[in-house]
């Protein structure tokens, strides 16, 4: 805590009267407080109460529920603050083309970690009980039950498909275990016109929108009913009907796509936004940085949802980045952001709901960092016990399960019970087993689909190659799988 000079103390005293700042300074650790105060860009909070749908306006708490907001051109406040400085001429404002600066003869470095801990928004405690004085968007019984059913369905879907891969019936699978709340709650807070650009751990969004268990199975088996025509690995779902862009294995490439799509929605004046999902690993890719910057500059209505689940395959976040999580990066790009407990379905719902309002009404991007834990392995090609303790996984699975947590809340509301629970689970299980059987027996797409859709029409070189290939197939049929019609 260096840099305490006479001037500085005066500044602090003058600012003490401003709402909340002094309390925050007491709370903050790792804070080069002087650097923050001298920063021309004054920190401002947006209380959640300014967002209409939120309940409990009187429960405004300094400890919880802040939106840490950075308003770049709110020069009125900073002018007021500095007007009362004794040595005004040392701290003049100056206009450079790169920005308005407040000069200072004191050398200050901006700290590598934020002034204040980036608060993580949660509404339900670990036992599914509402935290007192919490702000959240109310959810009806119908929606809540649908959310829970979808979360449970996702769990069962994952379990059964994972098993199917282990049995050799599908080649590959990726589970979403531990991240059901992020998937379902965020999907529930969106509308069907919102365009989704997923990574690959968000099948719950598709599920919420109405993708059937049979459709999931068809893609995993790559049969002729697969909308992707059997071209990609399992879990690479896509549905233009449900506004869910096709999954690709490439990391973070979808993030700038979402920005372009959001810009289009803005130009068309649609009441819709673009939403894109990615993990903590994805935030290291250049496309993430490019996208956030573009979104801010183009003022596009896009929601960036980061599933910070602690692991990028075997790489823990400490090997991934040294920033204080992901939400803090938003400010660096001029993007409003929030950190949310990703295992709290109500908090996720509220945050995404609020984000959507702001994105569409204010034409701005929003970054939502959902902290969670990847309970499953990265994929069926991974055994995560090789790089993390088995009991850590077990603990998160049992003690911090987002599905159980939400169930406790809806049960407490009298909206769910053990009977409905077992009914749902056995029904979904049976449906899934059936869907898999049907998908497995179905024909694969014809070999002609190898050549279509490279371009809108088949070019002459591909016509040539198809002819040549068919000749080869005729001469050596045993080289080719029997279940692909020729």
């Amino acid at each position, binding site marked *: 805590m260096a840099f305490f000079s006479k001037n500085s103390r005066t500044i602090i005293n003058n600012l003490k009267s401003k709402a909340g700042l002094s309390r925050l300074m007491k709370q903050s650790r790792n804070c080069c407080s002087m650097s923050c105060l001298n920063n021309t860009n004054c920190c401002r909070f947006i209380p959640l109460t300014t967002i209409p749908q939120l309940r409990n306006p009187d429960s405004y708490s300094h400890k919880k529920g802040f939106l840490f907001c950075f308003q770049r051109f709110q020069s009125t406040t900073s002018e007021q603050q500095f007007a009362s400085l004794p040595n005004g001429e040392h701290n003049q404002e100056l206009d450079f083309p790169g920005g308005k600066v407040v000069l200072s003869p004191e050398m200050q470095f901006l700290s590598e970690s934020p002034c204040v801990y980036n608060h993580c928004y949660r509404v339900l405690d670990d036992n599914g009980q509402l935290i007192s004085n919490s702000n959240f968007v109310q959810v009806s019984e119908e929606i809540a039950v649908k959310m829970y059913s979808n979360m449970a369905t996702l769990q069962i879907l994952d379990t059964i498909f994972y098993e199917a891969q282990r049995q050799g019936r599908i080649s590959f699978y990726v589970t979403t275990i531990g991240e059901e709340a992020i998937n379902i709650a965020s999907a529930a807070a969106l509308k069907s016109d919102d365009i989704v650009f997923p990574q690959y751990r968000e099948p719950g969004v598709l599920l919420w929108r109405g993708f059937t268990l049979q459709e999931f199975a068809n893609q995993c088996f790559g049969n002729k009913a697969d909308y992707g025509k059997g071209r990609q690995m399992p879990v690479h779902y896509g549905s233009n009907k449900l506004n869910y862009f096709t999954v690709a294995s490439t990391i973070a490439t979808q993030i700038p796509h979402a920005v372009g799509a959001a810009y289009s929605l803005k130009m068309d004046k649609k009441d819709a936004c673009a939403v894109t999902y990615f993990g903590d690993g994805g935030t290291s890719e250049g496309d993430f940085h490019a996208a956030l910057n*573009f979104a801010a*500059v183009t003022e596009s209505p896009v929601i960036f949802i980061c599933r910070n689940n602690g692991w990028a395959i075997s790489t823990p976040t400490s090997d991934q980045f040294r920033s204080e999580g992901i939400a803090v990066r938003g400010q660096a790009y001029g993007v409003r952001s929030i950190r949310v407990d990703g295992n709290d379905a109500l908090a996720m719902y509220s945050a995404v709901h609020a984000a959507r309002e702001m994105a569409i009404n204010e034409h701005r991007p929003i970054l939502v960092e959902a902290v969670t834990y990847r309970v499953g392995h990265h994929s069926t090609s991974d055994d995560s016990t090789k790089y993390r303790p088995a009991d850590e996984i077990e603990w998160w699975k049992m003690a911090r399960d987002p599905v159980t947590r939400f169930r406790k809340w809806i049960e407490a509301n009298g909206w769910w019970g053990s009977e409905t629970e077992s009914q749902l689970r056995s029904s979904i299980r049976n449906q899934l087993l059936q869907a898999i059987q049907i998908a497995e027996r179905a024909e694969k797409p014809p070999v002609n689909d190898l050549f279509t*859709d490279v*371009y809108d029409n088949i070019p002459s070189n591909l016509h040539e190659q198809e002819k040549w290939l068919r000749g080869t197939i005729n001469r050596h049929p045993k080289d080719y799988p029997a279940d692909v019609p020729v």
Partner: protein
Amino acid sequence: MFIVKFVFLHFVCLLQREREMALRNIMGKRVRIGLMGRRLLSTATCDVESGNSKSINLYSAINQALHVALETDPRAFVFGEDVSFGGVFRCTTGLADRFGKARVFNTPLCEQGIVGFGIGLAAMGNRAIAEIQFADYIYPAFDQIVNEAAKFRYRSGNQFNCGGLTIRAPYGAVGHGGHYHSQSPEAFFCHVPGIKVVIPRSPRQAKGLLLSCIRDPNPVVFFEPKWLYRLAVEEVPEHDYMLPLSEAEVIRQGSDITLVGWGAQLSIMEQACIEAEKDGISCELVDLKTLIPWDKETVEASVRKTGRVLISHEAPVTGGFGGEISASIVESCFLRLEAPVARVCGLDTPFPLVFEPFYMPTKNKILDAIKATVNY
């Protein structure tokens, strides 16, 4: 030092004069040549009108195409670094004023962002016309082009596509560009199923081809020969017109040897053809125009006529697109060939500054190769 400088300038001037003369021949009849390359004064569009054509240079033709594109499709956008004020090559002059900042805008300095954003815009049914300032800087966008744009339709089972995406970039030697203002990276993109690669040779071709690329329902990379931006002047129809993609054009008839090329190199090849004629060699010159998917039929038909092929491009010879053409022709026309397929291309070095005249596939290198092939 002064002598070295003088000699260097002399060679550069020769190179340019060669190009200038070559341009006279490559384009339509009433041609006005712009001033010499290096200390260029602006060649504004000429007042000469012919029917409803006007004599304009390449960047003006591109500019016209963009004006037409934005005029005819309200969902067309032009974006990239510095496009708002008109662009570093003036290709986007007047667009922002006419169509507004929401449709014509600067992007941050980030090629992967430009193309990624463009893909998203195109995926929503818009015509996204992205500019990469120099082809030399296209590589950060390579992942987005290869892994995303090229596979967007295929991987989705045709549920989605980004066909409305067109990426424009100036490419090729400019006399003083060095490593990073002279590259011809077309070969990298020709290896990617799912995109099209188009390269115009002149202003008239550029306007028609660019409009076709913009309106083609597939993502296209359009390389513009920057050397010709001011230097090439041609009669260009003022109206909206399109030229077909994947159709090569025989721009000079001949019977002894087929020459295949694209872009600015064609004017050099034309020069070689003219000189070869003085030695009694009749050369057929083919402009490929679209590199993928390329028009094998036209080239094969020409080779069946002449029995000899020579391919020329500025890009380094190894791994260049000339190799693909050569292999394909050998496969289909082997028994007709009277001589090995010749390639006169750039050297396998980074594009040099002082050594540019040595690096480039010059008229005389081509002429020597024509003679060697004919006399094989």
